[in-house]
């Protein structure tokens, strides 16, 4: 470029700027071989012939990235500040809402940090510069999400139970092993599988179901702190989703041999992600006091319609809809009810409070699920409500469930053909028996058994005595294993866990706001 030009040249267009700021940053190594410098991007079998064919459609360069992310941060923290100054935590619809938030913040925030680590590793592994820059930006984004969520946690933590130790619990609490195992499975794969798992299958195909109706639900329930970090994070997700779609299309265009490998990953990570969303289905249908849409409606909108369009587009590469998508479709009228019933069983060991749905909520579910709710699920919740009324506390299950060896969700799902029969699959590997919740998880197990036999299964670990505080003697008379496990989890029974109706959160809420939260009585049934 000339240093002596009389007037500045024409400003570069976005495409030229992007090329200058990315491709120009890479070089071919000389005194070490490229294969030694990038040892991890070939062993998965993915063949890349020309990394320059990689496109990042957002064309965001680092300078623009800092500018826009800085603005997003300013907006986000302005709203969080206003929320705190206004005591916004007391303007939410109903304190039961907070339990949705506890599940989100303890289940998802540690995943943001895991994603940050994963993208730092993936970014280091790609020898193409465009992919490396995109992965690096995503790594920074994910760290930002973890930070903004922790800042939100710290405000709610001053007033409510259950938010004091999410990172510690992530590695120990039984149901948190579900999201944890998804990310750790991905991080222990190669870089291409990692990006397919997280940016494509999780972010492109499935996060709309997590962030859009749930965050919109947070706004509807008056939680502006959460909706703001949620949407601020999700605007980064738009770039991540684009990275995911782009990496998949790039691999498919580079070599036809890549197609079957990618199809297998799409099948695997769709199913794993769908199982993880079980938690989201019950958040939407049972845990948001003011509901935006049902799980079933969200699944139709975001997976069947929008996901269907995506897979029709990918058909030109020979990619079809993920295996068992028809099972997910058949389960959409069942998933949330099965999940919430499970937390009604085990809510005394969860890091949030649970409750039996109130009569008007049962009616909403009947209306949203006319084919399944009254026939299969309403009688169970009415039985639970009657039990609670009679005993002054919820019915709880003191034995532990069998977990699926792959998704780590308890084996609670039912056969698509018979909603009264548990779907359980069993196999043997090297003389040991392993169980899965579905054909989808069993296929994944059988494809890589040597990986999944190593899974740290919380229930098995509890029964083996590995989840008690150090120095615990389980042989002393009157030993209470559940109390010891909750102690190991850093949970205070009855406060962090247990029934909402007898919780300190409810008691404090009534004291602080003067509201009476006694549930409305059921209308007597017409004779």
């Amino acid at each position, binding site marked *: 470029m000339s240093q002596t030009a009389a007037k500045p040249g024409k400003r570069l*267009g*976005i*495409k030229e700027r992007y090329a200058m700021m990315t491709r120009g940053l890479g070089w071919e190594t000389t005194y070490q071989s490229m294969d030694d410098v990038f040892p991890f991007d070939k062993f998965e079998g993915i063949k890349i012939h020309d990394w320059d064919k990689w*496109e990042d*459609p*957002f*064309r*965001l360069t680092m300078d*623009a990235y800092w500018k*826009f992310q800085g*603005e*997003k941060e300013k*907006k986000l923290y302005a709203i969080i500040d206003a929320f705190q100054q206004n005591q916004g935590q007391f303007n939410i619809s109903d304190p039961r809402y907070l339990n949705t938030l506890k599940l989100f913040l303890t289940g998802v925030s540690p995943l943001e940090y895991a994603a940050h680590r994963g993208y730092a590793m993936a970014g280091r592994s790609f020898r193409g510069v465009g992919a490396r820059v995109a992965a690096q930006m995503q790594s920074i984004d994910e760290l930002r999400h973890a930070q903004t969520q922790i800042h939100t946690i710290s405000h709610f933590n001053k007033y409510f139970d259950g938010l004091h130790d999410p990172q510690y619990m992530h590695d120990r609490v039984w149901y948190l092993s579900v999201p944890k195992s998804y990310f750790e499975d991905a991080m222990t794969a190669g870089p291409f599988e990692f990006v397919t798992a997280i940016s494509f299958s999780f972010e492109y195909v499935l*996060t*709309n179901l997590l*962030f*859009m*109706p749930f*965050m*919109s*639900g*947070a*706004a*509807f329930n008056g939680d502006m702190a959460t*909706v703001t970090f949620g*949407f601020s994070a*999700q*605007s980064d*997700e*738009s*770039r991540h*989703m*684009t990275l995911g*779609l782009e990496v998949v*299309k790039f691999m498919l265009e580079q070599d036809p041999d890549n197609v079957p490998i990618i199809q297998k990953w799409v099948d695997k990570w769709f199913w794993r992600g769908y199982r993880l969303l079980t938690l989201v289905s019950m958040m939407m249908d049972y845990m948001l006091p003011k509901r*935006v849409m049902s799980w079933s409606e969200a699944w139709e909108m975001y997976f069947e*319609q*929008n996901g*269907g*369009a*995506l897979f*029709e*587009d990918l058909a*030109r590469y020979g990619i079809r809809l993920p295996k068992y998508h028809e099972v997910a479709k058949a389960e959409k009228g069942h998933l949330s009810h099965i999940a919430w019933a499970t937390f009604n069983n085990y809510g005394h060991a969860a890091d949030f409070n649970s409750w039996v749905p109130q009569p008007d909520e049962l009616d909403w579910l009947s209306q949203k699920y006319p084919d399944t709710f009254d026939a299969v699920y309403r009688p169970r919740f009415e039985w639970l409500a009657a039990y609670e009324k009679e005993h002054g506390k919820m019915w709880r299950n003191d034995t532990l469930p069998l977990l699926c060896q792959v998704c780590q969700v308890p084996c609670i799902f039912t056969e698509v053909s018979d909603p009264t029969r548990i779907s359980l699959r069993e196999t043997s590997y090297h003389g040991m028996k392993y169980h899965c919740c579905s054909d989808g998880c069993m296929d994944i197990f059988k494809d890589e058994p040597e990986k999944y036999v190593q899974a740290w299964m919380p229930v098995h670990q509890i029964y083996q005595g590995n989840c008690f505080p150090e120095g615990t003697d389980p042989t002393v008379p009157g030993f209470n294993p559940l109390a010891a496990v909750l102690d190991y989890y850093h949970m205070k029974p009855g406060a962090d866990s247990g029934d909402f109706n007898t919780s300190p959160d409810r008691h404090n809420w009534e004291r602080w706001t003067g509201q009476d939260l006694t549930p409305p009585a059921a209308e007597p049934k017409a004779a």
Partner: protein
Amino acid sequence: MSSNAPTAPAAGASRQPVFISLQTNDISRGIVDAIVADNPEATVSEYPAMVKIDAPGRLVIRRESVEERLGRRWDVQELHLSLISLSGNIDETDEEFTLQWGARR
């Protein structure tokens, strides 16, 4: 409509839906108005705190149309400040932001 109005999609192009969703705020209201004006087939659905816009096959956001509504200069990349989610293949230039299905151009 000005001379750089979006070109019609090729005959036989996919009509599968693309979508974009934005936070509801003053700036996104201008963007949504511009989208509705430039994409006659777009449908707008409002939810608490967000708006989702679906269109069959293709959806264009034009810098000029947004600037007319905001009454100021608007960089297409400012979209990141309001964006929540999207679906479709992206083509972004200094002038417009396009979502569509089908092979790259």
